[in-house]
């Protein structure tokens, strides 16, 4: 169980001819332990860059990220998984071996690895497709394999960069339900980026609204509605409307 705390994050991208592009300016918020936080904003406001900074893929120029109270990038590492916009499955590996990919970074016994893979595939309901290759699976199934791969490492923090944006709405709602269930069951802290306000309201406990040029926090909104949240209920539509007004 780990919270994620950001303070004073700023980032510039170097430009060849112009002055460096200011992408993020003084971003600070906290994602609470075992809760779901959404980052929304128009395209080009640095949402993905911010997620990459939390993931440790991109260094911040200023500010700090602390995961579970520990400064990120140090030796004491909190298990963290990232889901990208694309499923990024290895085409030459079966579903089961794709799920096991993240486990191969650190030493692990074969029995433990097999068990984790089986559990993760069970969780996303793909036990029968363990030996299938990615190209044999539908888009929704591929997303589930990617989700299982993220969960197999038993992360305390799960970062998602619009991971379901390419799925059809029905499949998407279904996977949302699964993410909520799994996150609650394993007390995973989830941070996800989206441009879809409805998705943010349905899933998140807290929503960080960014505004562009440079990316700054417009507002942090708490969503305190009972779950499951139906997009058609009045309270949800109200929340969506008030958030849209901020964008």
């Amino acid at each position, binding site marked *: 169980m780990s919270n994620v705390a950001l303070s004073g994050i700023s980032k510039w991208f170097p430009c060849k001819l112009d002055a460096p592009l200011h992408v993020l300016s003084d971003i600070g918020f906290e994602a609470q332990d075992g809760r779901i936080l959404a980052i929304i904003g128009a395209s080009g406001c640095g949402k993905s860059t911010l997620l990459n900074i939390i993931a*440790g*893929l991109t260094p911040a120029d200023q500010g700090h990220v602390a995961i579970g109270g520990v400064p990120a990038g140090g030796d004491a590492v909190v298990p963290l998984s990232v889901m*990208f916009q694309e499923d990024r499955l*290895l085409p*030459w*590996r079966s579903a089961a071996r794709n799920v096991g*990919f993240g486990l*191969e970074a650190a030493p692990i016994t074969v029995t433990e690895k097999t068990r984790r893979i089986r559990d993760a595939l069970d969780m996303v309901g793909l036990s029968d497709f363990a030996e299938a*290759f990615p*190209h044999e699976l539908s888009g929704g199934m591929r997303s589930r394999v990617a989700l299982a791969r993220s969960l197999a490492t038993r992360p305390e923090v799960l970062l998602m960069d619009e991971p379901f944006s390419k799925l059809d709405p029905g499949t998407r709602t279904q996977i949302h339900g699964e993410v909520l269930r799994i996150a609650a069951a394993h007390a995973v802290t989830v941070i996800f980026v989206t441009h879809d306000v409805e998705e943010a309201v349905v899933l998140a406990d807290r929503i960080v609204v960014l505004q562009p040029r440079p990316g700054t926090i417009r507002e942090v909104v708490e969503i305190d509605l009972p779950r499951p949240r139906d997009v058609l209920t009045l309270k949800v539509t109200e929340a969506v409307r008030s958030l849209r007004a901020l964008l």
Partner: protein
Amino acid sequence: MTRTNHTSAMHVPDPQRRAIQARRTASVAALKQSIFNRVMLAALVVVLWYLASRNVPAFVLPSPERVAATWIRLVSLPSFWEDLTVTLSRVLAGFALAAVVGSVLGLIMGFDRRIGDFLEPVVIVINTVSSVIWAIFALIWFGLSEGTTIFVVFMTSMPLILTNVWKGTQQVDPGLVELARTFRMSRSKILLKIYLPTIMPEFFSGARLAFGFGARVVLIAETLGSTSGIGYRLRQAADLVQTDQVFAWTITLVALMLTVEFAVLKPIEARLFVWRRLAAP
């Protein structure tokens, strides 16, 4: 009767399965056609060869039956198998060395761009040097030894494998490398688990090319700098104007290369790239 049963069993038309079935029937027919074509072509060549050989002396063009008789005599000699083994082991030794060195260098050059840029001219230069020049250098450096032939095979096939592996590394999906980094995978593991599988198809086409070139240049090396092997026998046959011997060896070599292609390379490829073959529509 059986036909109606068959259709009623699949009362829901299954266009996908039918399409697969149709494609299979078509491919069997195409295979039969192509085997027939090949046999006809071979027969045509033998007939033309026979007709041509009737009007010229045997030392210019021996007849097919004369070559067949020579071949049968050649195969029954114990020295035939010795020469074949010697030449093959030279090709394999040079090729194996080339595969290891070429793959490792190609991977490193692809993995680290600076090293790749730095070494690129060396690869280009080595690629332009003729195999005969390597053979002459080898003769000067190693004399009449195993080293000479193996060196020539190595210098000819190594750049081919290296170039292909290096090209293969450019197809590595940066998204997958980024994914590996989120799992905190080490650089060596990224090399092993993402780069290596990605370059396998390119490695294979390079290796096929390299083996073919190696098997051909080994003869040049043997005619110039060896006292055993097929190349040496070919030079002997040429010195004694035994044209039928040259033909018999040529047929042996062609048969050998075809065997390697269809009995070794194709099955390995089919096994390794199951995921790829299925991915094709």
